[in-house]
């Protein structure tokens, strides 16, 4: 059911762990739902670029693989570029996900975005363009703790 790419990232996840003294932390998901993710980032304050990014994830194969590839995609990117990483981009980076696992690609991107928003909240002087969708989803996830779609296809 999973692509080779998913299995590769699942077996050899990149960037596992926590960045020391992180500049931004994003936690999404909920153990009650079986998926939880914590993304920590280090940001170069000058060119607003992600210099280090790590994840810790409790979850299924897709959750781990999407976490891994998301950190890989984010590393070295500017914050604006990282905010533009979409769930589609994550899923495509893994050569697709099974329909009932698509929510996992949300989770990972959301975690990354939350870490960036966390960084921004501590540095109000930084003005960058945050997509509407990212703000909206981050608010929703605060309300609901998570925004999984439990329905199967």
């Amino acid at each position, binding site marked *: 059911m999973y692509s080779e790419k998913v299995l590769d990232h699942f*077996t050899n996840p990149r960037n596992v762990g926590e960045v020391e003294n992180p500049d931004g932390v994003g936690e999404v998901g909920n*153990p*009650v739902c*079986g*998926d939880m993710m914590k993304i920590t980032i280090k940001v170069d304050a000058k060119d607003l670029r992600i210099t280090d990014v790590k994840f810790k*994830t*409790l979850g299924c*194969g897709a959750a*781990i693989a999407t976490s891994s590839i998301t950190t890989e995609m984010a590393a070295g990117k500017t914050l604006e570029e990282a905010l533009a990483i979409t769930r589609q981009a994550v899923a495509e980076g893994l050569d697709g996900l099974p329909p009932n696992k698509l929510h996992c690609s949300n989770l990972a991107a959301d975690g990354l975005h939350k870490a960036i928003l966390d960084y921004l909240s501590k540095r109000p002087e930084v003005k960058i363009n945050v997509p509407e969708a990212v703000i909206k989803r981050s608010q929703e996830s605060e309300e609901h703790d998570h925004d*999984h779609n439990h329905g199967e296809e």
Partner: protein
Amino acid sequence: MNDGKMTEGIIYMDHAATAPAYPEVTAEITKWFSGWYGNASSTLYSVGRKSEEGVARARAQVAALLKTSDREIFFTSGGTESDNWAVHGAAIANRKKGNRIITSAVEHHAVLECVQYMGRQGFDVTVLPVDQYGMVDPAKVREALTDDTILVSIMHANNEVGTINPIVEIGAICAERGVLFHTDAVQTVGKIPIDLSAVHVDLLSGSSHKFGGPKGCGFLYARKGAKVDPYFHGGGQERGKRSGTMNVPGIVGTGLACEIAGSHMAQEAARLSAMRDELQKGILERIPDVKMNGHPEKRLAGHLNVCVEGVEGESMVMCLDMNRVCVSSGSACTTGSLEPSHVLLAMGIPVELSHGSLRFTLGSANTPEQIPYVLDRLTTIVGKLRAMSPTYRKR
């Protein structure tokens, strides 16, 4: 002949999902597709009579295993059909008598979903709770029985945790009240003794592929006089009770599997529980924060279900697969479901913990040498996944 060769090097510990057919069963089945291919209903000519004889022998073999008469065995396409037939057939046939169906919270979906479907067709449904081990209390059945109850469906043993229900007591209570009692024995046929001459059961479901028979075949035992509508309408096979050209190869294989399973039931149970106990002991000793699920004694010999704290089940299953070990997490029926196991939840296990469930079900494909390897791999895997987990902290 095909035996284990194709899966050489693989350690298969998911026999409750499906089990390999006995090699003797495969060898026998093979004769009935292109060779003796007759329609078992076409008894007026040789090729058909040959098939009828095969079916008759198989029916006797199933009846012998269950200590009942072969006229009470009706072949089906598997456990799901048998369960749906029992529930739907009993409900519709007895609608004039009453409207309530009683079942338990830990039934297989083949019963639970079917009961709920009947609920949407206007029947009243009572779902009984279970104790911490997943067991149904006969006293709860007695309390729940109303005058308008027409069917009680309580499984013999649970597929996820292996807990065996007190069907003798439950059957007696139903008999007292004249209410039909169906038991889903898909996990127990061929594994623990079932004596239908001694226990009061009206309807009992079996599925061949769970005990060394072929996929695509099963049976429903229906006690003489039990009022149940047919589920498949048509050509009137199986004395009008179950229409459809008979699956002669499947039926012949089912009969033989019953005979083989019956011939070594006690030894096989002893062999499996020895391995299972070693696996259980090893896991509990070597991996901290693990909870064993299911009844400590009243449990199927091959079943071991555990919850591993701080790890999600699917990721463990996938890691074990990469080590050529096949197990399942929760119920293996539907993949990729995000729903936590309804069985573990009914047993009172917290949702978070239930996500970390792992089911080992041992069977014919297992040998004692496999246990240390599996223990070793599992310990490493849990360590690795816990290190990756944002929730697990060693205490």
